[in-house]
């Protein structure tokens, strides 16, 4: 029974990926994983594929906490929080990574707009936190200097 469920679920999941790869991340709480956005190699294109536009507004209400120097690019702690209301999603872009979109967080109205994670960074780069509130996207950017890259093998 367990195995059957697993197979059923994986087929559903694969199907969802195949049908809706272009789904815009921030529209639905259960939108499929946006393969297209995660594959894009250019920051501006990546932003556009997530939001459908490039109209970003720098805002001091978006708080990005990241180290100015990361000794180990394999583990760069990033925290994003905001005092903005009606936050739909938080996205973290790393400009100089092979694919700038690192991760996306869609919030329901029960969530507080505050998330934390750890990212890999191949080299020194700007890190941009983007918060979607209403129809607008607010950002905060900070440079993180990487002394040892996180993508080496």
């Amino acid at each position, binding site marked *: 029974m367990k195995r059957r469920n697993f197979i059923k*679920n994986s087929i559903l999941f694969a199907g969802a990926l195949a049908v809706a790869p272009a789904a815009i991340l921030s529209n639905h709480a259960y939108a499929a994983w946006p393969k297209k956005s995660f594959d894009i190699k250019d920051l501006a294109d990546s932003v556009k594929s997530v939001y459908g536009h490039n109209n970003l507004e720098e805002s001091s209400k978006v708080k990005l906490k990241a180290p100015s120097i990361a000794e180990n690019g394999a583990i760069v702690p990033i925290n994003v929080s905001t005092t903005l209301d009606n936050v739909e999603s938080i996205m973290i872009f790393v400009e100089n990574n092979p694919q700038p979109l*690192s*991760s996306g967080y869609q919030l329901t109205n029960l*969530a*507080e707009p505050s*998330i934390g*994670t750890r990212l890999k960074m191949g080299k020194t780069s700007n890190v941009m936190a983007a918060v979607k509130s209403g129809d607008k996207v607010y950002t905060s950017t900070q440079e993180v200097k990487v002394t040892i890259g996180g993508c080496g*093998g």
Partner: protein
Amino acid sequence: MSTIKMRSKESNGVVTVKALIKHPMETGQRKNKKTGDLIPAHYIQEVHGKANNKDIITIHWGPAVSKNPYLTFKYKGSKGDNVQISWVDNQGNRDTNTGKVK
């Protein structure tokens, strides 16, 4: 044992959930040093956070998230809530864990 270690704590009506997930998070861009072959991509793509069966957060991760990923999020809740975290990776593996808010 679950791959998800989690801890949730309430303070002033806001619950902070912290989780550590055991996962290789292979990017698919690394090479095996001995053979020179690419190590296939293997990373968590989706994480769902729920409290008392209500959706709190849906997360999409790419390969740039660190190995054994760490995650925090917050929501309006109280002590005793049942918090559930589940993940699915690009190879169809999945895991779920639940914990009570302290």
